[in-house]
């Protein structure tokens, strides 16, 4: 899409939003904001980042930490490469999820593991700015301002919400800076994401 097109489209959207705003409630303003956020996110076609994840598990006295690299390229390819403490890689490409550990590869289809799908679709859908994909799996709420927003994703499927009560994705403008999973049993994991400028 040419920049001129995007400009035109955004202009139309703002106009459309203004018309709607003229006589409606705050709720619809948030709706508009979600659309706007998705637009922003969708503009990033690819990106690389470093991550640090901490898992808070009740059984353990202190959180366990892992770190590595994260990369995304539109529309549906995402790779998470854990470097510490153990090397591990997870590649999500379309409908295929490939796990690599101890030099072994295993590929599964997301269809076969809906629980896993619900885990990864949230972050991929957000990075891609794919509102439809997100809303298919989660109830989506947006809070905050464009400079500091947070998406709350609540799984629609009961089988999923028995495991995860919610996913919180935080960011600024078109960039995602944190992903947190709240587990149904009270445990949680928090991931900080730092973009890496591409060479």
């Amino acid at each position, binding site marked *: 899409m040419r920049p001129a097109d995007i400009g035109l489209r955004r202009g139309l959207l703002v106009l459309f939003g203004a018309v709607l705003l003229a006589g409606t409630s705050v709720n619809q303003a948030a709706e508009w904001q979600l659309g706007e956020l998705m637009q922003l996110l969708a503009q990033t076609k690819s990106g690389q980042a470093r991550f640090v*994840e901490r*898992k808070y*598990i009740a*059984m*353990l*006295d*202190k959180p*366990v*930490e*892992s770190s590595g690299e994260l990369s995304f390229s539109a529309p549906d390819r995402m790779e*998470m490469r*854990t470097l510490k*403490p*153990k090397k*591990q890689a*997870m590649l999500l490409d379309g409908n295929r999820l490939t*796990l690599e*550990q101890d*030099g*072994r*590869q*295993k*590929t599964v*289809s997301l*269809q*076969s593991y809906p629980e896993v799908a619900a885990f990864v679709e949230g972050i991929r859908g957000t990075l891609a700015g794919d509102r439809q994909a997100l809303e298919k799996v989660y109830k989506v709420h947006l809070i905050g301002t464009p400079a500091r927003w947070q998406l709350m994703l609540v799984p629609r499927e009961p089988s999923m919400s028995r495991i995860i009560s919610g996913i919180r994705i935080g960011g600024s403008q078109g960039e995602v800076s944190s992903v947190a*999973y709240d*587990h149904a049993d009270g*445990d949680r*994991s928090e991931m900080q994401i730092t973009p890496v400028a591409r060479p």
Partner: protein
Amino acid sequence: MKRLRAHLPIVLWLAALLACVAVIARTTFVADLSAFMPRAPSERQQMLMDQFKDGIIARLIVVGIEGGDAAERARLSKALSAALRQQAEFIGVQNGSAADLVLDRAYVFDNRYLLSPAVDAQRYTEDGLRRAIGSTVEDLSGSAGMLLKQLLPRDPTGETRELLGQFEGSSQPPSTEGVWSTRDGARALLLLQTRAEGSDIDAQARTLETVRSAFAAIPDRPADTRLLMTGTSVFSVSSRALIESEVHRLAAASLVLVVALLLLVYRSARLLGLSLLPMLTGTLAGITAVSLGFGQVHGITLGFGTTMIGEAVDYAIYLFVQRPATPQQARLFWRTLWLGLLTSVAGFLALLGSGFPGLAQLGLYSTVGLVAAVLVTRYVLPRLMPQHLPAPDLPRTGELLLRLMRQAPRLRWLLLVLMLGMLVVVGLHVDRIWNRSISALNPVTQADQQLHEELRRDLGASDLRYLAVLTAADPEQALQQAERAGSVLQALSRAGTLAGYSSPSQVLPSLASQQARQAALPEPAPLRRRLDAALAGLPLRAERLQGFLADVESSRTRALLTRRDLDGTASALLYDSLLIPRERDVLVLMPLRPPIVDQTEQDIDIERVDAALKADGTRNITVIDLLAETNALFDSYLHEALLFSGLGCLAILALLLLTLRSVTRALRVALPLACAVVCVTGTLLLGGTSLTILHLVGLLLVVAIGSNYALFFDNTNTGSSAQEQRQTSISLVTANLTIVGSFGMLALSSVPVLAILGITVGLGTVLALLFSAILARPQTGLPQAASVESPA
């Protein structure tokens, strides 16, 4: 007395017929897949063949459900498996639903300390515990960490993970709506294990019917949903039905065709009836001989045997149409007929040596059948023939044929060009003349084979290409040896030589190993002490691990696991299929999974695996690449077939030389046959077909049958009247048409092996007749007997 002598042949003939009928009445007719399963030369190959025929593999049925939407298919899959589990005919029914795996998961988790090869004394020291627990905690930080944490309180040393690691490389079928499905989700899949032996085709047929009626009885089943089934037993049942129906159909069609043709030529019901006598006698004698020689008659032999209709009827045609009148004519006629019989029999006899029971039966059947047919033609028909034969005389047709045949030699240059072309074709395809795959002889249709491939692949059932096979005196020793081999295979899979392996000891370790593991588990007090010490520095406290302490203690003191503990689990299926008690020993099969790189399976270096196992001192173990093994087997049969066809052709040539006493004449007879063989081969190759053993047999039959034509041509042209020549040409064309008709019928068969033979022989015999005519010595008016009789 004179009367008796005159009637003696007829009396003997009738008595023989009665005897044949008596034998046939008691004959067993079979129609399973065995005719084209070669008798394996080595014990090992025989063992494998037996496993495929009778083993667990032959008892598996893969079921697919098509149509409707995914949710509907899942419902049908669940309903069908629930219904089938009620039936005593099935040992196992699996459809991948979560309920299916509950028992297996519980079995693995509850018995992890007896099952895990990682359990040894070292692991339960303070050091060992620290390392094992530390590694589990580290794993929690990984992407699957949140799923693994549930295991932590009771399994901090990660035995469950160790156990699941053993199954690495074995893929589960994809799952859609909670049940197994094909990759694209368009079919739901189930796996059934029947109680009946794979070779018990009647029982298998009933079992398949049970599945069909259970499916049909599911309430509210949408009309567009369908049931598909595949597996060895499905093949056996369907190919038996197919062979049975084909044999009847082919025999009836051939008979109708031949009768119609004969009526056209003879225009006499009486001659027609007489003509059929040699053929009927030959058929009965052939079946009797096979029944006596092999103990049973294979349906497919009867299928091939319909061609007997075509060949045996020829003798009567030659007799009735050529009508040798003078004693000299008669002598020449019978000599030619006997010679023709001998050359045919030389070809068929060669088949007797074949390692394929189906071909050996065909050889015996045809040999005996043809001899009987000629005997009846020689000794019975002349006595039943009316003195004044309503001679079948078709002067115009005969004249036309004769003229055509006289013109035929002009086509020699065309034949030369054709032969050169065909030789080039054969030369260009020399590397793929032979089809080396054993499935080329499979009586199952291509479509069925393809469906089988698809479903099997979707089910992730590895195609059992690589196997480590061992034998032991009893199950306990078998398991111990499997464990020993297993540790070598485990090391090889870590090194990437294989992706993994399956072994019965993975689901049920030997009693010795279980005892050793129990002995390695510490008593409660020392375990508690070591655990406390090991946890220092780890973010985990001992009071959270009470479940672990309790589980270790109960494993330490419990009764050892036996086969009975597996009842009802999918693991039982694995165990039973890999550990097979036999009469005198126990056989263990350990399938090896090939490594996968970039989604493609790599070959396993079996010599390396074999060397590693031998280096470890494991005896009685062999590593087999089944694909290579079956191909080698097939190659050896191909060589065998080449040898016997070669010998058959040599025998025919020798016969010709001996009786014709002239190299030139023998070559004149043999040349058209050689041309026909080259031409058929070239045509098949041009059509994209690679030759199998059956094509080779077909070519041998072309030589055996075609030699008759060449002989009569040779005969005709050595001085006979125009009338005789005309009659001969009619008889040859009629005889050829009956052969082409009956083999042509085979070519239409949907049983691949019958079709192959039909096409090869049908085409070959037409060409043999044509080429014989073209290569016959041109009629220059005066017979040149003098030069012909010159000795070789």
